[in-house]
């Protein structure tokens, strides 16, 4: 099925690659150069998915393929003070990307002992084992065109490395800011949490432009034994943008990965999250909320991979679609033969606010072990008419009653977020989106 075909968009990308800007020698000693070269070779053998591919059945990316976006210009006139309003109050470490390019001058990386934040190239130069062991190895680029493109064309990325038993008390805020029209950004981030380390990551995409552009992001997260990572992902790209992102997480012995992913923006978005519970007693909880309207299409594909015994996974994903919006949720849980006593629970709830809104939901449990507890469920509904009447009978008008119920539906996910400023901002956004008075 995946026969290499002439694909103008890809050809254009490859032309960029070969034009010399990011040329690297296949024989370079630098890990990053070798990784890019290898990924570029893969790009040449892959093609863009279409709705004929099972994993892309509900998401037609034809508009994205047609866009043929350019490489972003590297200079930016953004300043720290100009961006300050977007910084999470609680965070100290800030990593800012502008149009996919890591912007150290806008970032704040001077931090506590045991915490390293630096560009991937600088880390690769010094032969950082975190980079050589994990970068490009958690997010597999060999059979995924978008990951391959990101890996081949990643503009300067950032690495966050937390040493053993270090607790980073303030959340690390990684901010991807879009400013340019008609470009494709390939931001890349690697988080490595050492054994027993603990950190909260806020990964946020925002736009200072209303225009069309493409983000193709890859985030890799490695948790060593007993590490604890809390990951909040906020996607509020421009309403014209295309957003493709991959988060690949590797959870080892007794480590715990917790993520909350909020999708608000982009014309077409696709988020792939792969969590590998690689050792016994690994845990993850991945929750999500998609809130879209107009003509938006938001696709979330998650895959929780139980490889070893006594792993635990929890997942609650909610979709709210208004107008003609289309939400997609595909939640795969694999329990391998060795993963006995796995405890996995998944729930997907969707709320359709208009007759034209739609949701496609696809839970997939693949269980090869025989001593497991696994459950999943999916509901699709509309606003509860009795609840609307109840609120109206207390004096709220229909619009306010409706908005309050929509907010309440989403609040279950937002309430999981423990960072007050993020929670407050999200509540404000959603109240604005749902036009509550």
């Amino acid at each position, binding site marked *: 099925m995946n026969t290499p075909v002439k694909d103008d968009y890809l050809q254009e990308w490859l032309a960029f690659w070969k034009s010399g800007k990011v040329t690297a020698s296949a024989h370079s000693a630098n890990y990053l150069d070798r990784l890019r070269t290898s990924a570029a070779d893969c790009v040449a053998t892959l093609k863009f998915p279409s709705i004929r591919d099972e994993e892309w059945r509900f998401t037609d990316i034809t508009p994205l393929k047609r866009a043929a976006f350019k490489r972003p210009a590297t200079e930016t006139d953004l300043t720290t003070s100009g961006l300050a309003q977007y910084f999470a109050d609680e965070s100290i470490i800030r990593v800012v990307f502008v149009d996919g390019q890591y912007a150290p001058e806008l970032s704040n990386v001077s931090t506590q002992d045991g915490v390293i934040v630096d560009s991937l190239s600088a880390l690769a130069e010094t032969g950082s084992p975190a980079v050589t062991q994990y970068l490009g190895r958690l997010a597999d680029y060999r059979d995924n065109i978008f990951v391959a493109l990101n890996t081949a064309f990643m503009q300067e990325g950032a690495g966050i490395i937390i040493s053993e038993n270090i607790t980073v008390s303030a959340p690390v805020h990684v901010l991807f800011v879009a400013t340019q029209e008609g470009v494709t950004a390939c931001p890349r981030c690697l988080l490595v949490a050492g054994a027993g380390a603990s950190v909260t990551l806020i990964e946020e995409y925002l736009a200072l432009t209303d225009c069309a552009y493409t983000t193709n992001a890859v985030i890799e997260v490695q948790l060593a034994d007993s590490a604890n990572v809390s990951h909040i992902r906020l996607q509020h790209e421009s309403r014209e943008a295309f957003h493709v992102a991959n988060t690949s997480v590797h959870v080892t012995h007794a480590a715990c990965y917790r993520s909350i992913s909020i999708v608000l923006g982009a014309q077409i978005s696709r988020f792939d999250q792969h969590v590998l519970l690689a050792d016994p007693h690994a845990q993850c909880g991945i929750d999500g909320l998609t809130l879209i309207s107009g003509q938006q299409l938001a696709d979330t594909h998650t895959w929780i991979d139980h490889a070893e015994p006594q792993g635990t996974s929890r997942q609650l994903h909610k979709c709210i679609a208004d107008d003609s919006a289309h939400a997609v949720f595909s939640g795969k849980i694999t329990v391998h033969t060795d993963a006995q006593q796995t405890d996995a629970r998944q729930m997907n709830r969707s709320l359709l606010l208009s007759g034209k809104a739609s949701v496609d939901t696809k839970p997939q449990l693949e269980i090869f072990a025989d001593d497991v507890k696994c459950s999943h469920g999916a509901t699709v509904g509309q606003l509860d008419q009795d609840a609307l*009447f109840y*609120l109206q009978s*207390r*004096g709220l008008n*229909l619009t306010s009653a409706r908005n*309050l*119920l929509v907010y*309440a539906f989403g*609040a*279950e996910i937002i309430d999981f977020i423990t960072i007050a400023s993020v929670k407050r901002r999200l509540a404000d956004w959603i109240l604005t989106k749902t036009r509550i008075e």
Partner: protein
Amino acid sequence: MIRTDSSSSVLLEVRDLHACVEDTEILKGLNLTVKRGEIHAIMGLNGSGKSTFAKVLAGHPSYRMTAGEIIFNGVDITSLAPEERARAGVFLAFQYPVEIPGVANDQFLRLAYNTAQGQRGKEELDPLEFDDFVREKMKLLEMNPGFLDRSVNEGFSGGEKKRNEILQMALLEPLLAVLDETDSGLDIDALRIVAKGINQLANQDNATILVTHYQRLLDYIVPDYVHVMEAGRIIKTSGKELALELETHGYDWVSGNKARTSGV
């Protein structure tokens, strides 16, 4: 709209009310007059239409009025939306209060209270002011303040839900309170507390309609009138002693069904 003197002693005038749910007619010519300061009990068997009447008064969208009129406080409210009726002073205490996960009870109560205050041109309360205010009202109903932090009615017991309804009534101070089977699902202590709350809220300017299947509630709240409904109409109206007679003789006693009443 017809507006008469709003201080008139008649608060609610229902004339020849017909209403359907889908294509089934439930109310078939109901007439009722309620004056300020009065407490009315509407009794009847299941299916007689008494809960439908309560919902039609509040403007439930599932019920369609096909004939008649409802004059409330001098205004024909039949074309008004539920929230407009609420703001005019109609309050329905639900038989089955709706659970609303994700909406904090205190947030909901404050929203409802401030809407009513705004309507009356009175001062709205911020969260701190409201908290003090609502806690005072909760004492009246012997409610645990812990219910403020929970989602509206979610996981509340039957008795707690009913108390939460009366709490809303105490906050909104309606002109007309329609209590739909408020006694159902209450144990005797909860019934006593809820009845005490309702009695304390009744005054010479407002009126109460108790919709109930059993006489039990009327041991605690003494009505001025008792009405019996059957097949979508009020078929008998009398003083409070009617409730006791119903309790003794059953609804057949008052029913027009001769076969059953004379079936000795």
